[in-house]
């Protein structure tokens, strides 16, 4: 698994434009813990190791619990997440899996129960943004820190 190219050295202007949009999302009123859960869930669906490594470290640093991270793949089956977070996670899945089906009215209605229209847009932009990062980092195989071949596992 070797990196294909460094997108941000190759096209710094693209990187700047992405950071501009990411800054907007970061400064939105969406709570930081929610933003991290959304980023982790999208990165799980897109299988982006680089983004998972980064956002799990960020979330842990900000005080997120190991259980809420470890169980995120199964959030629907757990009550560790608030109704607001559940609505956001569902919307994250709907917008990340666009190729499977169009986002349902049910998911949107649930979203609007917990988010204002402004927040719904901010959340959707946040979901879009992590999907862009996932595509850049998976597409070019950006290596995450501490990514090293392991010796055979101990029994």
């Amino acid at each position, binding site marked *: *698994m070797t990196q294909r190219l460094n997108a941000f050295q190759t096209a710094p202007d693209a990187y700047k434009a992405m950071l501009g949009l990411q800054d907007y999302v970061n400064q939105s009123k969406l*709570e930081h*813990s*929610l933003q991290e859960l959304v980023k982790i869930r999208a*990165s*799980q*669906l897109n*299988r*982006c*190791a*680089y983004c*998972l*490594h980064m956002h*799990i470290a960020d979330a842990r640093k*900000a*005080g*997120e619990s*190991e*259980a809420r*991270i*470890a*169980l995120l*793949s*199964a*959030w*629907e*089956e*757990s*009550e*560790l*997440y*608030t109704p*607001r*977070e559940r609505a956001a996670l569902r919307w994250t899945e709907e917008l990340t899996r666009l190729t499977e089906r169009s986002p349902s009215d049910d998911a949107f209605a649930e979203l609007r129960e917990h988010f204002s229209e402004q927040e719904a847009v901010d959340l959707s932009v946040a979901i879009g943004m992590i999907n862009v990062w996932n595509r850049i980092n*998976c597409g070019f*195989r950006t*290596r*995450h820190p*501490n*990514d*090293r*071949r*392991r*010796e*055979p*596992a*101990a*029994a």
Partner: protein
Amino acid sequence: MSKRLNPYVTAADTMKPLIALEAAIKESGLEHSLIHLVKMRASQINGCAYCLHMHSADAIKEGESPARLFLLDAWHESALYTPRERAALAWTDALTLISETHAPDEAYEEVLRHFSPEETVKLTLLIGTINTWNRIAIGFRTSHPNDRPAKTAA
């Protein structure tokens, strides 16, 4: 999320052979670190909170690193896993999503490069068994410990 029924109470005798099979797999000689990774990966695909809670706690207790657990959804994109583990994870993905993948030759041949035929049977049974546990826990909505409605986000 309320529990539907408790299979251990409702059909204790039916559950006993499944528990025996689980014990046999644990003693099968497959390395425990690998067993945990396979169980976690299948439980991620199936979205089983109960099994993820149990096996992440077990794996960490036995010394597994949080990074290897948390990056497991993206194992394909990370070099934190050995070639033997990668072969087992690809086989886990293939057999868990079997209605989509039909267990391709490529995945099977990669398993045989890293596992003896006997180990391959054990691994396959391990994957089948965790898929059964996932179906029981999700089907009957078994709650994991510490599962309480979260009040507000931090």
